Protein backbone atom coordinates (compact mmCIF):
# COMPACT_ATOMS: atom_id res chain seq x y z
CA UNK A 1 0.00 0.00 0.00
CA UNK A 2 3.00 2.27 -0.29
CA UNK A 3 4.21 4.15 2.70
CA UNK A 4 1.66 6.64 3.96
CA UNK A 5 3.01 9.78 5.55
CA UNK A 6 1.22 12.17 7.82
CA UNK A 7 0.51 15.64 6.46
CA UNK A 8 -0.71 18.63 8.40
CA UNK A 9 -4.11 18.51 6.76
CA UNK A 10 -6.08 16.41 9.24
CA UNK A 11 -9.19 16.06 7.07
CA UNK A 12 -7.06 14.91 4.17
CA UNK A 13 -5.33 12.39 6.41
CA UNK A 14 -8.59 10.96 7.64
CA UNK A 15 -9.88 10.71 4.09
CA UNK A 16 -6.80 8.83 2.96
CA UNK A 17 -7.14 6.56 5.97
CA UNK A 18 -10.69 5.66 5.02
CA UNK A 19 -9.80 4.78 1.44
CA UNK A 20 -8.98 1.24 2.41
CA UNK A 21 -11.65 -1.26 3.34
CA UNK A 22 -9.41 -2.96 5.92
CA UNK A 23 -8.98 0.35 7.69
CA UNK A 24 -12.72 0.99 7.74
CA UNK A 25 -13.22 -2.48 9.21
CA UNK A 26 -10.52 -1.80 11.78
CA UNK A 27 -12.16 1.47 12.79
CA UNK A 28 -15.58 -0.14 13.10
CA UNK A 29 -14.21 -3.03 15.14
CA UNK A 30 -12.11 -0.67 17.25
CA UNK A 31 -15.10 1.55 17.98
CA UNK A 32 -17.30 -1.36 19.04
CA UNK A 33 -14.57 -2.78 21.23
CA UNK A 34 -13.76 0.58 22.81
CA UNK A 35 -17.37 1.27 23.83
CA UNK A 36 -17.71 -2.20 25.33
CA UNK A 37 -14.34 -2.03 27.09
CA UNK A 38 -15.10 1.41 28.44
CA UNK A 39 -18.31 0.21 30.12
CA UNK A 40 -17.17 -3.23 31.30
CA UNK A 41 -13.80 -1.86 32.39
CA UNK A 42 -15.55 0.78 34.45
CA UNK A 43 -17.28 -1.89 36.50
CA UNK A 44 -14.12 -3.99 36.64
CA UNK A 45 -12.05 -1.16 38.07
CA UNK A 46 -14.78 -0.27 40.54
CA UNK A 47 -14.95 -3.88 41.70
CA UNK A 48 -11.15 -4.13 41.92
CA UNK A 49 -11.12 -7.19 39.72
CA UNK A 50 -8.23 -6.16 37.50
CA UNK A 51 -6.29 -9.32 38.24
CA UNK A 52 -9.26 -11.48 37.32
CA UNK A 53 -9.73 -9.43 34.16
CA UNK A 54 -6.11 -9.81 33.19
CA UNK A 55 -6.25 -13.55 33.81
CA UNK A 56 -9.35 -13.95 31.66
CA UNK A 57 -7.65 -11.87 29.00
CA UNK A 58 -4.60 -14.08 28.68
CA UNK A 59 -6.91 -17.10 28.31
CA UNK A 60 -7.29 -15.94 24.72
CA UNK A 61 -3.87 -17.48 24.15
CA UNK A 62 -4.73 -21.10 25.10
CA UNK A 63 -8.10 -20.53 23.44
CA UNK A 64 -6.62 -19.57 20.11
CA UNK A 65 -3.78 -22.10 20.12
CA UNK A 66 -6.16 -24.87 21.24
CA UNK A 67 -8.55 -23.91 18.45
CA UNK A 68 -5.70 -24.04 15.94
CA UNK A 69 -4.78 -27.50 17.19
CA UNK A 70 -8.37 -28.75 17.09
CA UNK A 71 -9.01 -27.13 13.73
CA UNK A 72 -11.93 -24.95 14.81
CA UNK A 73 -12.22 -21.16 14.30
CA UNK A 74 -9.96 -19.15 16.61
CA UNK A 75 -12.82 -16.94 17.80
CA UNK A 76 -14.66 -19.99 19.13
CA UNK A 77 -11.59 -20.95 21.14
CA UNK A 78 -11.32 -17.39 22.50
CA UNK A 79 -14.85 -17.29 23.80
CA UNK A 80 -14.76 -20.84 25.19
CA UNK A 81 -11.46 -20.37 27.04
CA UNK A 82 -12.45 -16.98 28.44
CA UNK A 83 -15.82 -18.33 29.54
CA UNK A 84 -14.31 -21.35 31.27
CA UNK A 85 -11.74 -19.18 33.03
CA UNK A 86 -14.46 -16.77 34.19
CA UNK A 87 -16.52 -19.63 35.63
CA UNK A 88 -13.47 -21.16 37.34
CA UNK A 89 -12.46 -17.87 38.91
CA UNK A 90 -16.04 -17.28 40.02
CA UNK A 91 -16.13 -20.66 41.75
CA UNK A 92 -12.72 -20.20 43.36
CA UNK A 93 -13.63 -16.72 44.57
CA UNK A 94 -17.04 -17.82 45.80
CA UNK A 95 -15.75 -20.76 47.79
CA UNK A 96 -12.89 -18.89 49.41
CA UNK A 97 -14.05 -16.67 52.19
CA UNK A 98 -10.48 -16.75 53.45
CA UNK A 99 -9.57 -13.33 52.14
CA UNK A 100 -7.70 -11.74 49.29
CA UNK A 101 -4.54 -13.80 49.60
CA UNK A 102 -6.23 -17.11 48.88
CA UNK A 103 -8.36 -15.61 46.14
CA UNK A 104 -5.43 -14.01 44.32
CA UNK A 105 -3.51 -17.29 44.55
CA UNK A 106 -6.45 -19.10 42.97
CA UNK A 107 -6.65 -16.58 40.13
CA UNK A 108 -2.90 -16.84 39.58
CA UNK A 109 -3.10 -20.61 39.42
CA UNK A 110 -5.94 -20.47 36.88
CA UNK A 111 -3.85 -18.11 34.79
CA UNK A 112 -0.67 -20.19 34.67
CA UNK A 113 -2.64 -23.39 34.12
CA UNK A 114 -4.20 -21.78 31.06
CA UNK A 115 -0.91 -20.38 29.78
CA UNK A 116 0.93 -23.66 30.27
CA UNK A 117 -1.82 -25.45 28.36
CA UNK A 118 -1.59 -22.83 25.62
CA UNK A 119 2.14 -23.31 25.32
CA UNK A 120 1.62 -27.07 25.11
CA UNK A 121 -0.99 -26.64 22.34
CA UNK A 122 1.34 -24.33 20.48
CA UNK A 123 4.28 -26.72 20.60
CA UNK A 124 2.05 -29.65 19.58
CA UNK A 125 0.69 -27.58 16.70
CA UNK A 126 4.21 -26.45 15.79
CA UNK A 127 2.71 -23.45 14.05
CA UNK A 128 4.40 -20.26 12.98
CA UNK A 129 5.73 -17.95 15.65
CA UNK A 130 4.39 -14.84 13.94
CA UNK A 131 0.96 -16.04 14.99
CA UNK A 132 2.05 -16.08 18.60
CA UNK A 133 2.92 -12.41 18.46
CA UNK A 134 -0.39 -11.53 16.83
CA UNK A 135 -2.19 -13.53 19.46
CA UNK A 136 -0.47 -11.80 22.34
CA UNK A 137 -0.12 -8.30 20.95
CA UNK A 138 -2.92 -7.98 18.46
CA UNK A 139 -3.29 -6.61 15.01
CA UNK A 140 -5.74 -4.36 13.21
CA UNK A 141 -4.96 -5.77 9.82
CA UNK A 142 -7.15 -8.34 8.17
CA UNK A 143 -10.33 -7.86 10.17
CA UNK A 144 -13.16 -8.89 7.84
CA UNK A 145 -16.73 -7.69 7.98
CA UNK A 146 -17.88 -11.01 9.45
CA UNK A 147 -15.69 -10.39 12.49
CA UNK A 148 -17.07 -6.88 12.81
CA UNK A 149 -20.58 -8.31 12.83
CA UNK A 150 -19.66 -10.87 15.51
CA UNK A 151 -18.14 -8.13 17.63
CA UNK A 152 -21.28 -6.07 17.23
CA UNK A 153 -23.48 -8.95 18.40
CA UNK A 154 -21.24 -9.59 21.41
CA UNK A 155 -21.21 -5.91 22.28
CA UNK A 156 -24.99 -5.66 22.09
CA UNK A 157 -25.36 -8.70 24.36
CA UNK A 158 -22.81 -7.38 26.88
CA UNK A 159 -24.20 -3.87 26.97
CA UNK A 160 -27.76 -5.19 27.08
CA UNK A 161 -27.01 -7.36 30.09
CA UNK A 162 -25.26 -4.49 31.84
CA UNK A 163 -28.15 -2.13 31.05
CA UNK A 164 -30.51 -4.53 32.83
CA UNK A 165 -28.36 -5.38 35.87
CA UNK A 166 -26.29 -2.18 35.95
CA UNK A 167 -27.95 -0.55 38.95
CA UNK A 168 -28.15 -3.59 41.25
CA UNK A 169 -24.59 -4.48 40.22
CA UNK A 170 -23.43 -1.02 41.24
CA UNK A 171 -25.13 -1.38 44.60
CA UNK A 172 -23.72 -4.88 45.09
CA UNK A 173 -20.26 -3.49 44.30
CA UNK A 174 -20.40 -0.43 46.52
CA UNK A 175 -22.15 -1.97 49.49
CA UNK A 176 -22.73 -5.76 49.36
CA UNK A 177 -24.33 -5.86 52.83
CA UNK A 178 -27.02 -3.32 52.02
CA UNK A 179 -27.58 -4.93 48.64
CA UNK A 180 -28.09 -8.32 50.26
CA UNK A 181 -30.49 -6.85 52.79
CA UNK A 182 -32.53 -5.39 49.93
CA UNK A 183 -32.76 -8.78 48.26
CA UNK A 184 -30.22 -8.19 45.50
CA UNK A 185 -28.72 -11.56 44.48
CA UNK A 186 -25.10 -10.53 45.13
CA UNK A 187 -23.58 -13.97 44.50
CA UNK A 188 -25.33 -14.39 41.16
CA UNK A 189 -24.31 -10.88 40.12
CA UNK A 190 -20.67 -11.60 41.01
CA UNK A 191 -20.61 -14.73 38.86
CA UNK A 192 -22.62 -13.09 36.10
CA UNK A 193 -20.31 -10.10 35.92
CA UNK A 194 -17.28 -12.36 35.51
CA UNK A 195 -18.99 -14.03 32.55
CA UNK A 196 -19.78 -10.67 30.98
CA UNK A 197 -16.19 -9.63 31.60
CA UNK A 198 -15.01 -12.83 29.92
CA UNK A 199 -17.15 -12.15 26.88
CA UNK A 200 -15.98 -8.55 26.58
CA UNK A 201 -12.34 -9.46 27.09
CA UNK A 202 -12.46 -12.23 24.49
CA UNK A 203 -13.85 -9.76 21.97
CA UNK A 204 -11.39 -7.01 22.86
CA UNK A 205 -8.35 -9.26 22.73
CA UNK A 206 -9.02 -10.03 19.08
CA UNK A 207 -8.05 -6.46 18.28
CA UNK A 208 -5.56 -5.52 20.98
CA UNK A 209 -4.07 -8.95 21.66
CA UNK A 210 -4.29 -10.91 24.87
CA UNK A 211 -1.64 -8.95 26.75
CA UNK A 212 -2.83 -5.46 25.85
CA UNK A 213 -6.56 -5.67 26.59
CA UNK A 214 -5.77 -3.86 29.77
CA UNK A 215 -4.93 -0.63 28.01
CA UNK A 216 -8.60 -0.32 27.07
CA UNK A 217 -10.15 -1.96 30.11
CA UNK A 218 -8.30 -0.36 33.01
CA UNK A 219 -6.73 2.94 32.03
CA UNK A 220 -9.77 4.81 30.62
CA UNK A 221 -11.97 3.64 33.48
CA UNK A 222 -9.38 4.49 36.12
CA UNK A 223 -8.79 7.92 34.59
CA UNK A 224 -12.54 8.62 34.48
CA UNK A 225 -13.06 7.52 38.07
CA UNK A 226 -10.19 9.70 39.22
CA UNK A 227 -11.82 12.75 37.66
CA UNK A 228 -15.36 12.64 39.01
CA UNK A 229 -17.13 10.97 41.95
CA UNK A 230 -20.45 10.66 40.08
CA UNK A 231 -21.05 7.16 38.71
CA UNK A 232 -23.03 8.14 35.60
CA UNK A 233 -20.69 10.88 34.52
CA UNK A 234 -17.54 8.83 35.01
CA UNK A 235 -19.08 5.90 33.11
CA UNK A 236 -19.67 8.15 30.10
CA UNK A 237 -16.20 9.64 30.48
CA UNK A 238 -14.70 6.15 30.55
CA UNK A 239 -16.32 5.28 27.21
CA UNK A 240 -15.18 8.58 25.71
CA UNK A 241 -11.61 7.99 26.86
CA UNK A 242 -11.57 4.46 25.49
CA UNK A 243 -12.85 5.73 22.13
CA UNK A 244 -10.24 8.50 22.01
CA UNK A 245 -7.44 6.07 22.82
CA UNK A 246 -8.61 3.60 20.20
CA UNK A 247 -9.14 6.12 17.40
CA UNK A 248 -5.89 7.94 18.07
CA UNK A 249 -4.03 4.64 18.25
CA UNK A 250 -5.49 3.38 14.97
CA UNK A 251 -4.90 6.66 13.22
CA UNK A 252 -1.29 7.06 14.30
CA UNK A 253 -0.34 3.43 13.79
CA UNK A 254 -1.68 3.59 10.22
CA UNK A 255 0.90 6.25 9.41
CA UNK A 256 3.67 4.59 11.38
CA UNK A 257 5.69 1.43 10.93
CA UNK A 258 5.30 0.64 14.61
CA UNK A 259 2.54 -1.54 16.03
CA UNK A 260 -0.91 -0.53 17.23
CA UNK A 261 -0.37 -2.01 20.69
CA UNK A 262 2.37 0.44 21.51
CA UNK A 263 0.31 3.50 20.62
CA UNK A 264 -2.88 2.31 22.32
CA UNK A 265 -1.10 1.47 25.57
CA UNK A 266 0.93 4.69 25.51
CA UNK A 267 -2.10 6.92 24.92
CA UNK A 268 -4.02 5.08 27.63
CA UNK A 269 -1.14 5.45 30.06
CA UNK A 270 -0.74 9.14 29.23
CA UNK A 271 -4.43 9.72 29.82
CA UNK A 272 -4.27 7.99 33.18
CA UNK A 273 -1.27 10.02 34.29
CA UNK A 274 -2.96 13.27 33.19
CA UNK A 275 -6.11 12.34 35.09
CA UNK A 276 -4.13 11.62 38.23
CA UNK A 277 -2.27 14.91 37.92
CA UNK A 278 -5.53 16.78 37.43
CA UNK A 279 -6.97 15.10 40.48
CA UNK A 280 -4.01 16.02 42.66
CA UNK A 281 -3.90 19.58 41.35
CA UNK A 282 -7.59 20.03 42.06
CA UNK A 283 -7.22 18.51 45.50
CA UNK A 284 -4.49 20.98 46.37
CA UNK A 285 -6.47 23.84 44.87
CA UNK A 286 -9.46 23.17 47.09
CA UNK A 287 -7.30 22.75 50.20
CA UNK A 288 -8.37 19.15 50.22
CA UNK A 289 -7.87 17.39 53.54
CA UNK A 290 -8.75 13.82 54.37
CA UNK A 291 -12.21 14.89 55.48
CA UNK A 292 -13.04 17.06 52.46
CA UNK A 293 -15.63 16.22 49.84
CA UNK A 294 -14.66 13.30 47.60
CA UNK A 295 -13.03 14.34 44.35
CA UNK A 296 -12.91 10.89 42.84
CA UNK A 297 -15.13 7.85 42.75
CA UNK A 298 -12.44 5.80 44.48
CA UNK A 299 -12.67 8.16 47.47
CA UNK A 300 -16.20 7.05 48.30
CA UNK A 301 -15.43 3.36 48.08
CA UNK A 302 -15.35 1.24 51.22
CA UNK A 303 -12.90 -1.20 49.60
CA UNK A 304 -9.62 0.37 50.63
CA UNK A 305 -7.73 -2.07 52.84
CA UNK A 306 -6.98 0.31 55.65
CA UNK A 307 -6.59 3.94 56.65
CA UNK A 308 -2.84 3.93 56.30
CA UNK A 309 -2.47 7.41 54.83
CA UNK A 310 -0.46 8.74 57.73
CA UNK A 311 2.16 6.05 57.76
Amino acid sequence: MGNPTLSWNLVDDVNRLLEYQFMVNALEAGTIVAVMAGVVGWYMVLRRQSFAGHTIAVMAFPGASGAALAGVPAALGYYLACGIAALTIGRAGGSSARGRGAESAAIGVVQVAGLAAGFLFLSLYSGVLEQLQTLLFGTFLGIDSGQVLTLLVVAVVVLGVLAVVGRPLLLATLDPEVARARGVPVGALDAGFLLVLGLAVAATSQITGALLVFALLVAPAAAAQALTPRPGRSLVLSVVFALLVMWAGLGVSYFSIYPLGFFVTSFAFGLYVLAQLARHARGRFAGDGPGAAPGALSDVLPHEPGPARTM
Partner: protein
Amino acid sequence: MLGHEFIRNAYLAGTGVALACGLVGWFTVLRGQVFAGDALSHVAFVGAIGAAVVGVDERAGLFALTLGLAAVMAGLGRRAQADDVSIGVVFSWVLGIGVLLIAVLSTGTSGGNGLIVANTLFGSIFGLGAGQSVAAAAIGLGVVLGAVAIARPLLFASIDPELAALHGVPVRALGLGLLGLIGVVTAEGTQAIGALLVLGLIAAPAGAALRLTSKPYLGMALSAAIALGAMWGGIAVSYAVPSLPPSTAIVGIAVGAYALASASRIAL
Protein backbone atom coordinates in the same frame (compact mmCIF):
# COMPACT_ATOMS: atom_id res chain seq x y z
CA MET B 1 19.44 -39.04 32.17
CA LEU B 2 21.96 -37.17 34.29
CA GLY B 3 24.65 -38.10 31.80
CA HIS B 4 23.59 -35.16 29.63
CA GLU B 5 25.14 -31.86 30.48
CA PHE B 6 22.02 -29.85 29.67
CA ILE B 7 20.01 -31.93 32.15
CA ARG B 8 22.58 -31.36 34.89
CA ASN B 9 22.51 -27.63 34.12
CA ALA B 10 18.72 -27.63 34.21
CA TYR B 11 18.66 -29.33 37.61
CA LEU B 12 21.26 -26.95 39.02
CA ALA B 13 19.50 -23.81 37.82
CA GLY B 14 16.05 -25.22 38.49
CA THR B 15 16.83 -26.01 42.11
CA GLY B 16 17.86 -22.46 42.87
CA VAL B 17 14.94 -20.93 41.00
CA ALA B 18 12.36 -23.27 42.54
CA LEU B 19 13.49 -22.77 46.14
CA ALA B 20 13.52 -18.99 45.72
CA CYS B 21 10.12 -18.94 44.00
CA GLY B 22 8.52 -21.16 46.62
CA LEU B 23 9.79 -19.15 49.55
CA VAL B 24 9.15 -15.68 48.15
CA GLY B 25 5.83 -16.90 46.74
CA TRP B 26 4.60 -17.83 50.21
CA PHE B 27 4.86 -14.20 51.33
CA THR B 28 3.43 -12.99 48.02
CA VAL B 29 0.30 -15.11 48.44
CA LEU B 30 0.01 -14.34 52.15
CA ARG B 31 -0.04 -10.63 51.41
CA GLY B 32 -2.36 -10.95 48.43
CA GLN B 33 0.26 -9.55 46.07
CA VAL B 34 0.02 -12.20 43.38
CA PHE B 35 -1.05 -9.58 40.84
CA ALA B 36 2.09 -7.56 41.55
CA GLY B 37 4.18 -10.69 41.02
CA ASP B 38 2.26 -11.38 37.83
CA ALA B 39 2.93 -7.89 36.49
CA LEU B 40 6.62 -8.09 37.38
CA SER B 41 6.99 -11.42 35.62
CA HIS B 42 5.22 -10.21 32.48
CA VAL B 43 7.36 -7.12 32.18
CA ALA B 44 10.48 -9.23 32.61
CA PHE B 45 10.12 -10.23 29.01
CA VAL B 46 10.19 -6.58 27.94
CA GLY B 47 13.52 -6.26 29.73
CA ALA B 48 14.91 -9.21 27.82
CA ILE B 49 13.73 -7.84 24.45
CA GLY B 50 15.06 -4.40 25.35
CA ALA B 51 18.46 -5.86 26.14
CA ALA B 52 18.43 -7.62 22.76
CA VAL B 53 17.65 -4.33 21.00
CA VAL B 54 20.38 -2.42 22.81
CA GLY B 55 22.76 -5.33 22.46
CA VAL B 56 23.62 -6.00 26.10
CA ASP B 57 23.34 -9.21 28.09
CA GLU B 58 19.75 -10.40 28.46
CA ARG B 59 20.06 -10.67 32.22
CA ALA B 60 21.00 -7.00 32.57
CA GLY B 61 17.71 -6.01 30.96
CA LEU B 62 15.70 -8.51 32.97
CA PHE B 63 16.98 -7.38 36.34
CA ALA B 64 16.98 -3.67 35.50
CA LEU B 65 13.33 -3.70 34.48
CA THR B 66 11.89 -5.96 37.17
CA LEU B 67 13.72 -4.17 39.97
CA GLY B 68 12.85 -0.77 38.52
CA LEU B 69 9.18 -1.65 38.27
CA ALA B 70 9.19 -3.12 41.77
CA ALA B 71 10.41 0.23 43.04
CA VAL B 72 7.75 2.09 41.04
CA MET B 73 5.02 -0.16 42.41
CA ALA B 74 6.25 0.32 45.95
CA GLY B 75 6.26 4.06 45.40
CA LEU B 76 2.72 4.12 44.00
CA GLY B 77 1.03 2.23 46.78
CA ARG B 78 0.53 2.95 50.40
CA ARG B 79 2.53 0.66 52.67
CA ALA B 80 4.58 -0.33 49.61
CA GLN B 81 1.59 -2.29 48.29
CA ALA B 82 0.41 -0.89 44.99
CA ASP B 83 -3.31 -1.19 44.33
CA ASP B 84 -4.43 -3.25 41.40
CA VAL B 85 -5.46 -0.36 39.16
CA SER B 86 -2.07 1.33 39.17
CA ILE B 87 -0.38 -2.04 38.67
CA GLY B 88 -2.63 -2.75 35.71
CA VAL B 89 -2.11 0.63 34.06
CA VAL B 90 1.66 0.70 34.49
CA PHE B 91 2.27 -2.83 33.39
CA SER B 92 0.06 -2.66 30.33
CA TRP B 93 2.10 0.34 29.23
CA VAL B 94 5.38 -1.48 29.77
CA LEU B 95 4.01 -4.35 27.68
CA GLY B 96 3.11 -1.84 25.00
CA ILE B 97 6.73 -0.71 24.95
CA GLY B 98 7.64 -4.37 24.62
CA VAL B 99 5.56 -4.56 21.44
CA LEU B 100 7.41 -1.56 20.09
CA LEU B 101 10.75 -3.17 20.91
CA ILE B 102 9.73 -6.38 19.13
CA ALA B 103 8.92 -4.32 16.07
CA VAL B 104 12.26 -2.50 16.31
CA LEU B 105 14.05 -5.80 16.71
CA SER B 106 12.37 -7.43 13.73
CA THR B 107 12.95 -4.47 11.41
CA GLY B 108 16.55 -3.99 12.55
CA THR B 109 18.20 -7.37 12.58
CA SER B 110 17.54 -10.46 10.54
CA GLY B 111 16.30 -13.79 11.82
CA GLY B 112 16.34 -15.32 15.27
CA ASN B 113 14.16 -12.71 16.93
CA GLY B 114 11.07 -14.89 16.90
CA LEU B 115 13.13 -17.36 18.90
CA ILE B 116 14.13 -14.71 21.44
CA VAL B 117 10.48 -13.74 21.92
CA ALA B 118 9.36 -17.34 22.36
CA ASN B 119 12.22 -18.14 24.74
CA THR B 120 11.65 -15.17 26.99
CA LEU B 121 7.90 -15.73 27.06
CA PHE B 122 8.03 -19.43 27.80
CA GLY B 123 11.61 -20.10 28.87
CA SER B 124 14.00 -22.82 27.87
CA ILE B 125 15.49 -24.51 30.88
CA PHE B 126 17.20 -27.07 28.64
CA GLY B 127 19.00 -24.30 26.80
CA LEU B 128 20.94 -22.90 29.76
CA GLY B 129 24.72 -22.96 29.61
CA ALA B 130 26.92 -24.02 32.52
CA GLY B 131 27.76 -20.44 33.49
CA GLN B 132 24.11 -19.36 33.40
CA SER B 133 23.09 -22.32 35.56
CA VAL B 134 25.67 -21.60 38.23
CA ALA B 135 24.61 -17.95 38.24
CA ALA B 136 20.94 -18.94 38.50
CA ALA B 137 21.63 -21.30 41.39
CA ALA B 138 23.74 -18.70 43.19
CA ILE B 139 21.11 -15.97 42.79
CA GLY B 140 18.42 -18.40 43.92
CA LEU B 141 20.44 -19.17 47.02
CA GLY B 142 20.97 -15.46 47.66
CA VAL B 143 17.22 -14.81 47.45
CA VAL B 144 16.51 -17.69 49.83
CA LEU B 145 19.01 -16.30 52.33
CA GLY B 146 17.58 -12.80 51.96
CA ALA B 147 14.02 -14.04 52.46
CA VAL B 148 15.00 -16.08 55.53
CA ALA B 149 16.81 -13.08 56.98
CA ILE B 150 13.73 -10.84 56.82
CA ALA B 151 11.18 -13.64 57.38
CA ARG B 152 10.33 -12.84 61.00
CA PRO B 153 9.76 -9.07 60.77
CA LEU B 154 8.11 -9.48 57.35
CA LEU B 155 5.68 -12.01 58.78
CA PHE B 156 4.80 -9.61 61.58
CA ALA B 157 4.41 -6.70 59.14
CA SER B 158 2.24 -8.79 56.83
CA ILE B 159 -0.15 -10.08 59.44
CA ASP B 160 -0.63 -6.92 61.46
CA PRO B 161 0.98 -3.85 59.88
CA GLU B 162 -0.34 -1.38 62.46
CA LEU B 163 0.95 -3.31 65.44
CA ALA B 164 4.25 -4.00 63.68
CA ALA B 165 4.73 -0.31 62.98
CA LEU B 166 4.04 0.45 66.65
CA HIS B 167 6.76 -1.99 67.59
CA GLY B 168 9.22 -0.17 65.36
CA VAL B 169 9.21 -2.68 62.50
CA PRO B 170 10.00 -0.84 59.24
CA VAL B 171 6.80 -1.90 57.42
CA ARG B 172 7.39 0.13 54.26
CA ALA B 173 11.01 -0.94 53.86
CA LEU B 174 10.00 -4.57 54.29
CA GLY B 175 7.30 -4.24 51.66
CA LEU B 176 9.82 -2.73 49.28
CA GLY B 177 12.27 -5.49 50.16
CA LEU B 178 9.73 -8.17 49.32
CA LEU B 179 8.87 -6.54 46.00
CA GLY B 180 12.60 -6.39 45.25
CA LEU B 181 12.93 -10.09 46.01
CA ILE B 182 9.95 -10.84 43.78
CA GLY B 183 11.65 -8.80 41.07
CA VAL B 184 14.86 -10.81 41.36
CA VAL B 185 12.98 -14.10 41.43
CA THR B 186 10.93 -13.28 38.34
CA ALA B 187 13.97 -12.10 36.40
CA GLU B 188 15.76 -15.30 37.31
CA GLY B 189 12.76 -17.52 36.71
CA THR B 190 12.12 -15.95 33.32
CA GLN B 191 15.27 -17.54 31.96
CA ALA B 192 14.23 -20.94 33.24
CA ILE B 193 10.50 -21.25 32.68
CA GLY B 194 9.60 -18.00 30.95
CA ALA B 195 7.99 -14.68 31.73
CA LEU B 196 4.46 -15.97 31.31
CA LEU B 197 4.85 -19.11 33.41
CA VAL B 198 7.12 -18.09 36.29
CA LEU B 199 4.00 -17.02 38.17
CA GLY B 200 3.11 -20.71 38.34
CA LEU B 201 6.06 -21.39 40.63
CA ILE B 202 5.29 -18.32 42.71
CA ALA B 203 1.53 -18.73 43.18
CA ALA B 204 0.71 -22.43 42.96
CA PRO B 205 3.10 -24.01 45.51
CA ALA B 206 2.50 -21.19 47.97
CA GLY B 207 -1.25 -21.38 47.49
CA ALA B 208 -1.13 -25.12 48.13
CA ALA B 209 1.05 -24.71 51.23
CA LEU B 210 -1.23 -22.03 52.67
CA ARG B 211 -4.22 -24.30 52.21
CA LEU B 212 -2.49 -27.21 53.91
CA THR B 213 -1.06 -25.53 56.98
CA SER B 214 -1.49 -22.30 58.87
CA LYS B 215 1.85 -22.59 60.65
CA PRO B 216 4.11 -19.99 59.03
CA TYR B 217 7.51 -21.66 59.01
CA LEU B 218 6.10 -25.06 58.11
CA GLY B 219 4.16 -23.36 55.31
CA MET B 220 7.28 -21.66 53.93
CA ALA B 221 9.19 -24.94 53.93
CA LEU B 222 6.27 -26.78 52.37
CA SER B 223 5.91 -24.14 49.65
CA ALA B 224 9.60 -24.34 48.76
CA ALA B 225 9.42 -28.15 48.81
CA ILE B 226 6.41 -28.25 46.47
CA ALA B 227 8.10 -25.82 44.08
CA LEU B 228 11.24 -27.95 44.13
CA GLY B 229 9.24 -31.13 43.55
CA ALA B 230 7.44 -29.54 40.60
CA MET B 231 10.75 -28.42 39.12
CA TRP B 232 12.54 -31.74 39.50
CA GLY B 233 9.52 -33.74 38.43
CA GLY B 234 8.82 -31.45 35.48
CA ILE B 235 12.36 -31.73 34.15
CA ALA B 236 12.25 -35.54 34.43
CA VAL B 237 8.81 -35.85 32.82
CA SER B 238 9.68 -33.62 29.92
CA TYR B 239 12.94 -35.52 29.39
CA ALA B 240 10.91 -38.73 29.21
CA VAL B 241 8.23 -37.21 26.95
CA PRO B 242 10.06 -35.04 24.41
CA SER B 243 6.92 -33.47 22.94
CA LEU B 244 6.05 -31.99 26.33
CA PRO B 245 7.83 -28.64 26.86
CA PRO B 246 9.63 -28.52 30.25
CA SER B 247 7.94 -25.28 31.28
CA THR B 248 4.51 -26.83 30.78
CA ALA B 249 5.48 -29.94 32.72
CA ILE B 250 6.85 -27.93 35.65
CA VAL B 251 3.86 -25.63 35.86
CA GLY B 252 1.50 -28.53 35.31
CA ILE B 253 2.82 -30.37 38.36
CA ALA B 254 2.67 -27.20 40.48
CA VAL B 255 -0.94 -26.58 39.43
CA GLY B 256 -1.75 -30.23 40.14
CA ALA B 257 -0.34 -29.86 43.65
CA TYR B 258 -2.51 -26.81 44.19
CA ALA B 259 -5.62 -28.63 42.95
CA LEU B 260 -4.87 -31.60 45.22
CA ALA B 261 -4.33 -29.33 48.21
CA SER B 262 -7.65 -27.58 47.56
CA ALA B 263 -9.45 -30.89 47.13
CA SER B 264 -7.97 -32.37 50.31
CA ARG B 265 -8.98 -29.28 52.23
CA ILE B 266 -12.57 -29.64 51.08
CA ALA B 267 -12.53 -33.38 51.82
CA LEU B 268 -11.22 -32.94 55.37
